[in-house]
Structure formats: C-alpha cells, structure tokens
C-alpha cells in the first residue's frame, strides 16, 4: 500500500488570507493506490502505473491546488475575468484528479471475470448482454480522437446505464450528468509504453483487471443517491 504524505483538510476557513491560502494549497492530495505498481501486470505494466500515478496524476493534483489558490485570490478581489479565465485549468486539472481517483479504484489485481448480482442484471437489461456492453464500451473508447476517457455511466433520471466518452480530462458527471461507474483512460500515456499505437489491444486486455465489486458499489451508491 502506498500512502500519501500530506493530510487532507476538508474545509477551508472563510477568512481567506495568508493562512487560508496555505490551507487551500493542501486541499487536494494524491489518494492512496490500493495495490503496488506491479499488481496489474501483465495487463498494465509497473512502469506505466508508476509514471501514471506519481507523475501524471500527481501533476493534476498540484496544478488543481494552484488553480484553486488563484481562484480564491480572484474571488477575493472580485476579478470576474480572472475567475472565468481559470475555468479551463480547473476543469482540466480537477477533471484529471477526479478521473484518475476513480480509475485506480475500479481496477484490481483480483479483478476480471464477470459482474454479478444487481450490476449484472442492470447491464443485461440495458445492453442485452454483458458482451454487448463490453463491445460498446471498447469500441467507443478505441474511437476517441486524441485524448479522453470511455465510461460506463448511470443516468440518474432514467436509471439506465449508458456508455459515454469524454474528451481530454472532462469529468463525466459535470459534463454529461451521468454518474461514473467504470472508466477507461485512453490518453496515450495510459498505455503507450506497453501497447504503443495499438489501442485496441489495450482495450481487449483491460477487462482482465476490472474491479467489478467496486463498480457494483458505485452503482449502489448512485442508485441510493437518487
């Protein structure tokens, strides 16, 4: 188990100032990775996991904290232009942090196989079969132009499961309203060192490490929240 070294501070005091700025800098931290870097081999190599977590995800966290600090300043000085100018950085880094935090959880060295229980029932209901869902999500993920994510999401209004894709680090829920259950990172950094340009091979392999227990938990939480 790998631990983050900074503590998470859940609430920022109203009085922004030197202390407030300092506090907001510690607002987001890299979540613990639930397994070692090599745990997902041979599906995802240790090298990819190490760089993906300690470099890419860590950078999103750092830059999110920086953007939020600037946002606090902009709000304090009522600089609406600056507030709006910060939105792309917040979406990109905040989305990156959200997406990767979900991703580590929905993968597992003990994953793979098929879902069961309510999750399986709902998948069969909304896609016809488990294989049909896999095919749709895989195809959608392969087809993402440039960088983005493929998602299995839950529509809180219709209560149905849907496959969706988002560009760059756009987070699923704020962008589409769907609650993320399972996601696949198809940025090249997620697979390139191992699979090179053959994204379809990465998509074939990733099903071996899907943490269906966690996906089922995500569905349960989403359903309860309605």
């Amino acid at each position, binding site marked *: 188990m790998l631990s983050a070294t900074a503590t998470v501070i859940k609430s920022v005091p109203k009085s922004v100032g030197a202390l407030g700025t300092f506090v907001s800098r510690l607002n987001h931290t890299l979540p613990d990775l639930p397994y070692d870097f090599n745990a997902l081999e041979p599906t995802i190599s240790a090298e990819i996991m190490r*760089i993906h977590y300690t*470099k*890419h995800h860590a*950078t999103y966290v750092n830059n999110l904290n920086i953007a939020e600090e600037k946002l606090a300043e902009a709000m304090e000085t009522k600089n609406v232009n600056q507030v709006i100018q910060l939105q*792309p*950085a917040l*979406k*990109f880094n905040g989305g990156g942090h959200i997406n990767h935090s979900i991703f580590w959880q929905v993968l597992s060295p003990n994953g793979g196989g098929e879902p069961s229980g309510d999750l399986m029932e709902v998948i069969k209901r909304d896609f016809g079969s488990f294989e049909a869902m896999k095919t749709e999500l895989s195809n959608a993920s392969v087809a993402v*132009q*440039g*960088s983005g994510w493929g998602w299995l999401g839950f529509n809180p209004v219709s209560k149905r499961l849907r496959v969706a894709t988002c*560009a*760059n*680090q756009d987070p699923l829920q704020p962008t589409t309203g769907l609650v993320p259950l399972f996601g696949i990172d198809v*940025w*090249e*950094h997620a697979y*390139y*060192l191992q699979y*090179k*340009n*053959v994204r379809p091979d990465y998509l074939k392999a990733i099903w071996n490490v899907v943490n269906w227990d966690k996906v089922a938990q995500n569905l349960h939480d989403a359903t309860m929240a309605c």
Partner: protein
Amino acid sequence: MADATILQAWLLSFCYFTTVMTLKMPYEFIADQTSNYVLPKLPYDYKDLEPFIDEATVRVHHLGHHAAYTKKMNIALEQWTADSEVAHSMSLAQKPILDILIGLDDVPKKYKSSIQNNGGGYVNHNFYWSVMSPNPNLDDREPVNQLGDDIVKAFGNFSNFKALFTQEALSLFGSGCYVWLSRNPIENGKLVISKTTNQDSPLTDELQPILVIDVWEHAYYIKHQNLRPKYVSDWWNLVDWSLVEEIDNWWKGPNYDYHEEL
C-alpha cells in the same frame, strides 16, 4: 565487354540520379494527387533524428500512426467519391487533400469527421516530417533570409519567437495537439503561431503552415514519458530552417502538379 560495363554504369547512375532528384518531401504529397495516397518515405533513416527523437518513436510514429491515417484517409476518399448520394460534392472529392481540408466545411456530413481526422492526420504528419533533419553535430540552427527577417519583424527576435512557440506547446490542456507557424495570406503573409487539437489543420482556417510540432503523447512518450518540455526543447535542435524556407517558397509558387480538366 567494355561497352556493356559502361552501359551498366550509366544505367545505375541514371537510376541513382532520378531517385535522388525525385525524392519528394512528404509535404509535397498533399497537393499533387487525389487518391491512393502513399505513406511518404521519410527524408532520413529512423535512427537519424537521435539523440533528440529516438528511433523507436520515429518508427512507430511513421509506420504505426501516420500509416494508419494514410490508410483510413484513402478509404474515406474512396467511399466519398463512389457515393452517388453526394454527387454535388464530387468536384471537391476529386481534389488533392490540401484543397479538401481548406474546403472542409463543404465535405458532406457523412464523411467530414473521417476526412478531418484521417486527412488531417495524413497532412499534419507530412508537414511534421518535412521540417526536421538530422543534427548529429548539435549545430545551432536559426532562420535566415526573408524568413529570418519576417520572424524578427513578427516576434521581435528569434529567441522570443522560440519562447512563444514553446509556450503554446506546453500550455495545451489535453494532449493530441499541434503548434504551427503559418503565414496568413489575408494579412499579407504575416507570420502567426497557432495550435490545433486532434488532427485539425490550419489549412481549414486558410492559413499556410510552414512549421509544426506534433505534441501528441505518441510523439515523445517512449523517450520522455510525461516530460513534454524536454521533448520540445530537443525538437528545436531538429528544425531545419532551410527546409522551412523551402515550404515557405512552395506556398508562393505554383504548387499543383495536378491540373484540372479545362
């Protein structure tokens, strides 16, 4: 016997001469044909861009990514030209990919996305390979002549231009992008730095690109992983300003070998 040897030698020289003389730069392929595009050969060996871009990357980038765009573009063009339902767009469909990307808005909806991604991918990579050359002696390279003057005029000095261009390459939200130096014909050929996402092309904005860097992760990940700034700084060593000048001049001259029927 002597005659045969002389003939052989002459034939060999002729073959060598014509091969060397007709080695097209990749960017030239975008304007002189209209179908069955081939993956252009690189003007250098796969290992020749070392140490700045590693051999493995150049190989996969060219034979994997660029080749895939070439193939898919050909398929899309074939389907489009054979589609009687969109006969009104045939004159565009039968133009070189350069013109198709300029007129992208007129591509039928059915084919637009595929042409934008794959045609764009083909053309963007053609430019990318065309502006680099091996630099084994780590020469300092700078633009000269008219282009050099125009860069100074537009950006103050070469350093400043490099800094601005680099900043664009590093500030992109998302991967899957390019940064371009182009001339804008409606501003009297003023030089502009711009960026495009995915496989979009400045041609669609009617700019005339002369320099480009590919900052998709696949362009650098094997060697640099997440360290894009290192890739960009290495890439400057490969930019060959005489080639950039050639492209600049190409835009000014007649650049179609393909002639429309009168």
